[in-house]
Each structure stands twice: as structure tokens, then as C-alpha cells.
């Protein structure tokens, strides 16, 4: 270690720069090959349609008033969805981080279940609540389907877990004694929270907001199903131009427009966050949570549970109810038909056990990839210096804000020759899912890594620890929880089939969401019921997998 480090002047020495570049190499290569190259290929093909640069198209598309309208709708619905999600989910993050109550682990898993459900199924459940003849309609005569509210509420449904997990992950590790100290010094509860806790949480809140915004900015299925054809986001527009009309020039311009919007957002985010991040005192999460005390905490817990029950569990319950509502009354008819090769002509449209196996195998591979790559990237990004680092940070976030169909079709034309003919290889699926998982890992781990007091590392160095050993002994224990939270995300992302692979043809090894979508695409009593039954199985698989993951985490943090 150079002396300058211990005096606090954070100028990178050549050795540190080398280490950092080394850490960046794998994530950079990954994003270069599986994101930048395919996207550049498809955008390039579009802009150079027929061997001629199509720059005239840029002006044509950008001056189309309809596109302006689409961009405006895309942006404001994403902003509104983000605000609404934060409003409803931040209390949830607090409750799950700081309060101790029976069934907490289960609740944490349950709020993540929506994240993995196929949009077509969720759309159906929401219509049953908000639509004609739905619960709201019967109780108060209120119908929200085909209004923007249905879209916004469904976005909250999907993204609740993003806020709870990202913010809650850090919140649980903040030392409560700091806030207590402020109160002892005379600050009111609110003032103590606003002055002490909120600034500490700001980076995590900003990270969660950024991810929710990007997810809703590129929202596709929900907007189509709940909004109807009158509402279109840029994502829907790019999908139509690419997958339906094969109008690559227009799609390319729209992709660039999407890039520009996302880049602007990332810039704003980087500027706001840079000023907020600070070193924090982190403690073991298991020591911060306690039983609710006082009327206010009980009321908060009750209201969070009420929101979760109404907005998250009720739609899920609709699906479960339908899965049991068989032709001869309630029963297991659909589940039984999934287990026996029945249905149509003696074959499975999909074999359910195989789909569960595929889903789990893909999810494990995608999680491993995302954690390794995202972990390396976060380690490289721990110290915020240099434009290079900030650019790298933004690059990692870009896939969240890029149309999946763009990436998918990019794969199709870019990864088509040896040694990279991966189009029909199973590995492409977890790779594509890791593209979406890595940003989550980075955004979950980074606030914690950056909050680690540098002096701890320096103390380790002074005591003779190598940088690797210092990282293992200082950073890893504190970051272990965040890594586990991030792994849960990556796992859910993969189970939910996020990623560009949905948009390319691939060998027929359907995952659970694919199987559900295929069943819903067939007419008749049995496929519909089977789709509902498989959706219920998907929820169970997700909840159980996350509970197991939580358990592994608790055991591990217990060691530290």
C-alpha cells in the first residue's frame, strides 16, 4: 500500500488501477460479447439497410408526432410507476428490515413471487380484480381496466420486491444506534430518521428507483394486456417494428432513442448519487430487527400487510383459485391432468416436470453467472473515481433499459458463426438472463461495498493482510448478505424468464413461464386450467427456492 492511501488522498496507484482493470475484464468481455456486439449488429443492420446508410430515417421517425407521443407516455408512466412503487414499498422495506415478526421470511419470499410470473397470467389476474365484474366493480362499481391505473398498479405488483430487497438489504445492516443517538440528543423521531437514516439509505433508494424506472420504462406485456392497444410504450413500438413488420431501420432509430433516454437517466442518477454516498456503520442484520413496539409500529406493520394482501396476494390468489376450479367443481383435476399424459391425443403440449427442471437449471446457471460477473463488477466499482469507472457503471445498467427484442434479434444475427454460434445452445438462456441479473447484483452490492469503512481495509493492510485477504476478511462478510439478496434477484429474474432469449428461436426445452404462455395460446377447458395450475406451481417453486436461499444466507451470515 502506498502511503498516500493511508492519508486519505484517494489517488489510484498504478497497481490499484491494474487490479481494477483486471476485475473489470470479465464483466467487460461479457457485456461486450453478449450485449454491445449483438445490439450494435442489429442497429447497424437497420441503419445500413440495403447497403445504404439510412440517416434520413432518423429524422423521419423522430419527427413523427406519434413517436413523440409514445416517448412521452413511456416516460411519464415509468416515472409515475416508480413513484407509486416507492411510496407503497418503502414502508414494506422498513418492516421487513427492522421489525421481527412470525412469518417474516415467508413474507419476504411471497412479495418476490409476482416478479417471476408471466405477464399474460398477471394481466389475467389483474383483470379479475380491476376489470368488469371484478372485485372492485362488484364492491364499488369501479373499473380500472384499460385505464392507466391498471398499468401502474400492475407495475407496483411486479416491482414491490425490487424496492423491498434493494433498500431493505441495506436498511437491515444500518446501525440503529445512530438514529437512537440522535434521539437521545433531542431530535424527534421524524427528524432523526430524516437526518440520519434517510441520507444513509439514499443510494439504495436511488438504486431501487433507477431499476424500477428502467423496468417500467421498457414495460411490454403489462402495457399491452392491461392498457389495450391504445397505450404503447417505446418497447411495444420496437417490438412491433422488429418482430412484426421487420422494419429494422425504424426499429434501429427507436432503439437509439431508447438508449438516449436511458443514458440521460443514468447521468442524472450518477450525479445525484455521487453526492449522497458515504461510509456507513454496518452491522449484522440479525441484530437490528426487533419485535414491533408501540401503536405506531404495529399500525405500520398492519398497513404494510394490508397493502401486500390487497395488491400482491389477492391477484395471486385469483390464479390459485382458478387452478382448482375444475370442470366438476373444486379439485385437483388440472394438476392431475398435468401429471398424466392426457389432454390432447396422448402427448403433452409441455411436460410439467421437465419444465420445472429446465427452469431450475437455467435459474441456477444464470444466478451463478450474475453473481460472479456482478460481484467482480461491483468490486471494481467500489471506489468511485475516474470517468472510466462511471462509464463502466452505466454500461452495466444499459441492458435493463434496452428492448429485449433488440438484444434477442441481435443474438440471432451476431452469434451465428463458430466459435460463437450459441443460438441453439442452452447456455445462451442463462447468459441472456444474466444480462438482466448483473445490474441487480451490482446495484444491490455496491451501496453496501461503498458503505464499508475504508479504514477497516487499511487496518487489515497495516496488519499485513494482502489485498485479497483484506477483501475476504473485511468486505465479504459485510457484503455477504447483499450478495445473497442479489442472488435471490438473479434467481427470480431467471425463473421469470426475463431476458432476450424469449425473442430467439431455441431448442425446445420450455421453462415454466414458456409452458404457461403456450398453454394459454390454446383454446379449450383443459389448457386454460393447466396454465393456471402451472402458474401456481411456478409461484410455489419461486417461494420455496427463495426460502431455501434465505436459509442458506442466514446460516452463512451466522458464521461471520
Amino acid at each position, binding site marked *: 500500500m502506498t502511503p498516500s492511501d493511508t492519508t486519505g488522498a484517494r489517488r489510484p496507484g498504478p497497481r490499484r488501477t491494474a487490479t481494477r482493470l483486471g476485475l473489470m475484464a470479465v464483466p467487460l468481455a461479457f457485456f461486450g460479447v453478449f450485449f454491445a456486439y449483438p445490439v450494435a449488429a442489429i442497429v447497424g443492420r437497420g441503419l445500413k439497410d440495403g447497403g445504404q446508410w439510412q440517416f434520413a430515417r432518423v429524422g423521419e421517425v423522430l419527427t413523427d408526432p406519434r413517436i413523440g407521443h409514445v416517448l412521452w407516455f413511456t416516460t411519464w408512466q415509468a416515472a409515475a410507476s416508480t413513484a407509486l412503487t416507492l411510496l407503497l414499498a418503502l414502508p414494506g422495506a422498513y418492516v421487513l428490515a427492522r421489525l421481527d415478526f412470525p412469518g417474516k421470511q415467508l413474507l419476504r419470499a411471497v412479495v418476490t413471487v409476482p416478479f417471476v410470473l408471466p405477464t399474460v397470467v398477471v394481466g389475467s389476474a389483474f383483470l379479475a380484480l380491476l376489470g368488469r365484474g371484478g372485485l372492485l366493480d362488484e364492491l364499488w362499481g369501479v373499473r380500472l381496466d384499460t385505464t392507466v391505473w391498471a398499468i401502474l398498479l400492475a407495475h407496483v405488483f411486479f416491482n414491490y420486491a425490487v424496492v423491498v430487497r434493494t433498500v431493505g438489504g441495506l436498511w437491515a445492516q444500518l446501525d440503529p444506534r445512530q438514529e437512537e443517538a440522535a434521539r437521545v440528543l433531542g431530535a424527534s423521531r421524524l427528524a432523526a430518521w430524516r437526518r440520519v437514516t434517510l441520507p444513509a439509505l439514499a443510494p439504495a433508494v436511488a438504486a431501487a428507483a433507477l431499476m424500477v424506472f428502467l423496468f417500467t420504462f421498457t414495460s411490454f406485456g403489462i402495457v399491452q*394486456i392491461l392498457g*389495450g392497444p391504445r397505450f404503447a410504450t417505446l418497447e411495444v413500438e420496437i417490438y412491433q417494428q422488429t*418482430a412484426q413488420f421487420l422494419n429494422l431501420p425504424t426499429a434501429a432509430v427507436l432503439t437509439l432513442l431508447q438508449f438516449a433516454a436511458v443514458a440521460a437517466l443514468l447521468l442524472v442518477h450518477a450525479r445525484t448519487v455521487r453526492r449522497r454516498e458515504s461510509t456507513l456503520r454496518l452491522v449484522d442484520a440479525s441484530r437490528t430487527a426487533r419485535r414491533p413496539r408501540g401503536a405506531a409500529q404495529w399500525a405500520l406493520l398492519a398497513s404494510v400487510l394490508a397493502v401486500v394482501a390487497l395488491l400482491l396476494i389477492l391477484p395471486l390468489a385469483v390464479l390459485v383459485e382458478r387452478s382448482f376450479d375444475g*370442470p366438476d367443481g373444486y379439485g385437483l383435476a388440472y394438476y392431475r391432468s398435468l401429471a398424466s399424459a392426457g389432454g390432447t391425443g396422448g402427448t403433452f403440449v409441455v411436460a410439467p416436470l421437465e419444465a420445472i427442471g429446465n427452469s431450475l437449471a437455467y435459474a441456477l446457471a444464470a444466478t451463478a453467472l450474475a453473481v460472479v460477473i456482478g460481484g467482480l463488477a461491483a468490486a471494481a466499482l467500489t471506489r468511485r473515481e475516474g470517468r472510466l469507472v462511471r462509464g463502466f457503471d452505466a454500461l452495466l445498467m444499459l441492458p435493463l433499459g434496452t428492448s429485449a427484442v433488440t438484444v434477442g434479434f441481435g443474438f440471432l444475427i451476431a452469434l451465428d458463426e463458430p466459435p460463437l454460434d450459441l443460438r441453439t445452445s442452452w447456455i445462451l438462456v442463462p447468459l441472456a438472463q444474466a444480462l438482466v441479473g448483473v445490474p441487480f447484483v451490482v446495484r444491490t452490492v455496491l451501496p453496501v461495498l461503498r458503505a464499508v469503512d475504508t479504514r477497516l481495509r487499511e487496518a487489515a493492510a497495516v496488519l499485513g493482510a494482502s489485498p485479497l485477504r483484506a477483501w475476504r476478511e473485511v468486505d465479504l462478510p459485510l457484503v455477504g448478505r447483499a450478495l445473497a439478496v442479489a442472488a435471490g434477484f438473479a434467481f427470480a429474474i431467471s425463473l421469470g424468464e426475463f431476458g432476450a432469449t*424469449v425473442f430467439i428461436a431455441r431448442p425446445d426445452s420450455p421453462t415454466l413461464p414458456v409452458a404457461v404462455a403456450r398453454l394459454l395460446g390454446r383454446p379449450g377447458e383443459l389448457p386454460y386450467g393447466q396454465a393456471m395450475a402451472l402458474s401456481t406451481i411456478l409461484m410455489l417453486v419461486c417461494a420455496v427456492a427463495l426460502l431455501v436461499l434465505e436459509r442458506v444466507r442466514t446460516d452463512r451470515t451466522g458464521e461471520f
Partner: protein
Amino acid sequence: MALGLPALAACGGSGDKSAGGSSKTVTLVSHDSFVASDSVLKEFTKQTGYKVNVVKGGDAGRAVNQAILSKNHPQGDVFFGVDNTLLSRALDNGVFAPYEAKGLDRVPKDLQSDAAEHRVTPVDTGDICVNYDRAYFADHKLAPPQSLDDLAKPEYKNLLVTENAATSSPGLAFQLATAAKYGDNGWQDYWKKLKANGVEVVDGWEQAYNERFSGSAGGKKAKGDKPLVVSYASSPPAEVVGANPLPAEGPTGVATGTCFRQIEFAGLLKGAGNPEGGKALIDFLLSKTFQEDMPLQMYVKPVNQDAALPEVFTKYGAQITAPQTLAPEKIAKNRDQWVKEWSSLVLK
């Protein structure tokens, strides 16, 4: 031997095109709706020694576009599932290599859209038609509509739900039916009348059929409120498949004067790694074995005149005698423009 074959095939994988025709795997690229009985695919392996590897890529439109984009390095040997609404785009982009399939003589001439060059082979037909909920019309003592004209009549106000022509293939087919019936400059007026008569447009078939249509199994659970929906002529038989005992009459029927005929084709992909296997597979798609398996797997009708329809089709399906049709070239020429016009006319 029985154990050895699949293992070998698995090693070879679909990406293995280097074997130059000696590969024992033939890869079929298709859309998500492709389903065939295992026993039928095994029969093909028994006859030819080739194992079929299926690669699926989204809905029909997306799958065709993928085939076009990857034409320099095709993902397989045979593509199945390009229909007459997309055929010209695929042919113009040179995706297919000519091959005259064995068994074409048993296929009606009017289905052979590329009879001169044989770049594609017709495999099945399906009609997109308005379906109606029998119970609703019986309860309301109203005769179900039979023709496109009927749909614009006041007694059917607010009863029809259809799909977005820009995103859904039945939605597009229904628009094409109206263009075929009322002409290039007449369909717009018809849609204005439909709109005034309260036609509802949702994004996809799943929403229209499973959520809004009151006659389908899904729609009953979702309390669907529209007794008329744009779906397939084969949807009524599908509604009774699996019922035990079979009802005297299905819950839904077909308005036979509202149909548009889709023909689905298969073709040998240019640059296929295993063209011989591909040709054998195309022959097999026309065989009686495959053709008789299709109806209950994909809810389409065989093109081979020797293939018999299953009983649920003959008993619960409707005979569509005069569907609307349009030449693929005409569709290719007008499709995007019509969809654009339709969107601004109907969705605004």
C-alpha cells in the same frame, strides 16, 4: 442400438451442420404453436433414421422474421409455419430452397401457392372466423350473426371483441377478410360501421378468447362479457376436447360467413446442413400419419385429401365453404399500409 441413437443425436446437436448430410438429426424451425405427437415423430425416425429436433421461436410473425434475419446461417433444415399473410416476405427474402415434396398430388391445387417453383409446400389450413356463444344467443332469443354484414347490424351492437391487427395474427386475418370482401377502398367504411357498432379491440388472442369471450372455458371463469370473438373455425371443437361425456352440442359456434383462410407452408431452408433429412421431413409433413395427427395437436385442417378428420372436428366443427382469400402478393403489397390505416381508424 435403441439406446445408442438418441445419445448420438444428442452429441451431434442441432448446431452440427458440418457432417454434410450424414447427420442423423434433422432440425425443424417453427413457431410456438407447433406440436406433434411423440409417437408420430418416432414414426418418422423409424421410417428414415432421422431424429427430429424442434426449435421454436415465438409467434408466426416473429418466427418468419427470425428465419429471414438468419438466412445466411439458418437455424435448422426445415421451416414450418409461414402462412399466406407472410409468405411473400419469406419468398422475396430468399429463405427457401426449391423442393417438390412427395405427396403433393394429393393436395388441392388452389392451396399450392408456389406451384411454379415449389419453394414452399402447403401443410395445413385454418380458418379465422367469428365464434359465438350459443348460450348467450339462446338466452336473448337472437339469431347468431352469419356474415360480416351482420356484425355491423344494431342487434349485435357491443357484442364483438377482436384482436389488434398490428400485433395479432387472427386480428390481421380478420382485417384481411374485410379487405377481401369489401375491397381495397371499401373496408375502411365497414370498419367505421363496426366501430360505431361498438367493436372492442384487445391486444392478443389470449385476451380476446380467454378473458372477454363469454363462450370459452377461460372466458367463463373470467366472466367474459362478449358473446362474439374473432378466433378459429377449430375453436369450437377444441372447447369440447377432453370433455367426458361429450356434449350433444358444443358451447360455441362459428359464423361461417366471416372467415378468412390461412394456409401454412413448410420449406427447405437454403443452406440447410442436412438437406436430405429436410426433404424427408417435408415429405413426412404431407404424409397421412402426420396430417391426421395435426388437427388435435395444432387445431388445423389437413391438406392431404386422404387424411381423415377426427370425430370432434366433423361433429363440432363447421364446414367453411366460401372463406375470404387474398393472394400472398396482394397481402405483401398492402399489409403494412392497411395495418397503419386500420390502427388510426379503429384504435384512435
